[in-house]
């Protein structure tokens, strides 16, 4: 990476407190399942089983950790998530069924996130407070203060988490979020995450963004910051937990910048081919797990083979599911029930 997180004053030292083996295994499992899912999605797209792929290979260390740490559920007592289209591992770690992601890829009527209306990895899950992911970059940063205000009013430990990339911070919505979450006397419990992969499609952010680090932009607002190596799941888990604990208890915002990789380019529009010259968080983590004798190479390969096969089988089943009907376009233009104030009785934490 061009930026060395260790040079930043807030940079996290990986060697602080070791995570338990149980946590390491959970993080690894979620990262691996998310990676296998992304690889299946890319293949589906290349085989014509889906119009477009965009996703988050290279962000798994951070996003899986986030998903495991979220206070999951519906309503302002729980965490609200305003994610971006690279947040696959977050949903996987939260327990979302990968089959549902395949359904969205195949645009079938059974896609629970958009009923065949949106691109893959554009999640929306009311029962877990996952706000609809939309393709316009950074708009989620303008919405986050609203849910954070509701979190604050609810008086519990629920917080708002909003995530976007480095390129998106050029939008005014990023400034909006900094501004609205730090109004003097009205600070909001909002964790802002920027996953910095150094790219906006084909444009290097170092050519466009003058601040040395994106977190530096939070300083005039008095917002606490963290700059971390998002390719290291141990650092990511620990620093995210620390950041979330701070936002939960202090009820104030925090901006966390995580340096990550973009392992298959921007999207299928740029080919979705593996980029060999960026660090691969999964490979690096598996090497560590092997060195520390937490998992054997054989066990990890077997697990990868199992998930790959399961997803291949699932993708075949998805092909047989019905496409939405043309007349379905008229459904849900307007809300028939009051979804926001009357929680779905089926919804659960």
């Amino acid at each position, binding site marked *: 990476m061009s930026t060395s997180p260790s040079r930043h004053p807030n940079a996290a030292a990986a060697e602080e407190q070791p995570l338990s083996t149980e946590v390491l295994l959970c993080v690894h499992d979620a990262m691996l399942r998310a990676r296998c899912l992304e690889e299946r999605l890319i293949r589906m797209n290349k085989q014509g089983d889906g119009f477009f792929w965009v996703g988050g290979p290279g962000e798994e260390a951070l996003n899986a950790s986030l998903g495991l740490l979220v206070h999951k559920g519906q*309503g*302002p007592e729980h965490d*609200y998530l*305003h994610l971006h289209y690279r947040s696959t591992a977050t949903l996987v770690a939260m327990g979302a069924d990968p089959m549902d992601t395949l359904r969205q890829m195949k645009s079938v009527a059974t*896609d*629970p*996130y*958009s*009923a065949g*209306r*949106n691109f893959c990895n554009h999640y*929306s*899950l*009311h029962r877990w407070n996952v*706000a*609809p992911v*939309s393709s*316009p970059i950074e*708009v989620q*940063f*303008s*919405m*986050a*203060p*609203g*849910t*954070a*205000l*509701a*979190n604050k*009013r609810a008086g519990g430990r629920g917080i*708002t988490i909003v995530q976007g990339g480095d390129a998106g911070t050029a939008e*005014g*919505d990023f400034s*909006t979020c900094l*501004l*609205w979450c730090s*109004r003097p006397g009205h600070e909001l419990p909002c964790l802002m995450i920027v996953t910095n992969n150094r790219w906006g499609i084909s444009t290097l952010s170092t050519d466009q963004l003058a601040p040395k680090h994106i977190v530096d932009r939070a300083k005039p607002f008095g917002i606490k910051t963290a700059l971390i190596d998002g390719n290291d799941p141990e650092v990511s888990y620990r620093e995210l937990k620390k950041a979330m604990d701070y936002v939960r208890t202090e009820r104030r915002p925090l901006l966390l910048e995580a340096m990550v990789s973009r392992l298959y380019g921007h999207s299928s529009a740029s080919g979705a081919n593996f980029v060999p010259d960026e660090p691969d968080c999964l490979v690096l983590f598996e090497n560590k797990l092997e060195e520390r004798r937490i998992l054997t190479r054989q066990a990890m390969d077997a697990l990868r083979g199992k998930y790959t096969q399961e997803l291949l089988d699932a993708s075949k089943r998805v092909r047989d599911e019905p496409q939405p009907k043309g007349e379905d376009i008229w*459904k*849900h*233009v*307007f*809300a*028939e*029930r*009051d*979804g*926001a*104030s009357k*929680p779905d009785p089926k919804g659960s934490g």
Partner: protein
Amino acid sequence: MATVVQAIRLALHVGEERLGVTDVFGQDVGPPLGGVFTQSQGLKTAWNTPLDERGIIGTAIGLALAGQRPVAEIQFCDYAFNMIDLLKLAGGVSWSSAGDWSCPMVLMTPVGSGIRGSIYHSHSFDAQATRIPGWKIVMPSNPLDAYGLMLSAIADPNPVMFLAPKALLRAKAGRNERIPGEPEDDRTLSKMIDAPLGDRSKWRPDWPDVQDFFIPFGKARVCREGRDVTVVTYGRMVVVAAQAAELVAAAGVDVEVIDLRSLSPYDWDAIKASVRKTRRVLYLNEDTEVTNFGEHLLRRTVEELFYELYAPPRLLAGAHVPGIGLADSLERASVPQVDQVVAVLRELAAHQP
């Protein structure tokens, strides 16, 4: 009798007390000012925001997603153009999530010309607004409708745009248009709910016990019955149409004036019934004429009622120029005036098939 702006304030108060409104917010909306038009004076949930329209609408969406009941204000609709994508997003919350989420919020914003507001305090927004699916859009022309439409807007589970014709904000109710429960005398009402000039820090409103009065969306109001020509309009142009109708009545032309009140959904049945009766129709509004909401209604009229018409249907709307110029002559040349409406009504009435 309440003015339009007092009616809006009373409705927001009822919203806070009985309909769960949690936030009335925007730039200068909270104390001490209570809105540049006084629309939010004395409201207990009113608060001031940064001068950031994207933040205002974005925060409203977030609040709505989290089960709050926000009423957000953009001080003039002229300043809503930098958040069109967020309006599109709010309108798409239900649809894009296949009904999983809804976005119950109200966006109120003053619209239109008539106060000599120059280039950036005179825009209309109905043409833009009606191009954004997923929103309900209302535009009152009198205090009672402002009150009833605002209560319905607050209660609706969808995003609702409340377009307030700024030139009518001080207009008073006509007879028999009293808000249920408002004081008989307008001075009494003013003393109860209008903030005093000067130091307001200790002032509290004394709210009258106004009653619920919901006006359903998609129901037009026939504000003048007639048999010769129909005018379909809304907002400030309702008043202009009524004046024009009186002027041509002297010449024996009997005009029916329909106030749509709600643009999404709109009352096609009411339009159809009136046009079938008069067989002559004028669509009237003050937004710019190219890709205008009236054009949509006109297209539908041609497609569905062509053989029932006695005259080509007409649209009278604003000039397609970038803004409303400040000089009186410029503003008058930019938006429909009574004499122009009179001329079109006469032409329509005289036209023989």
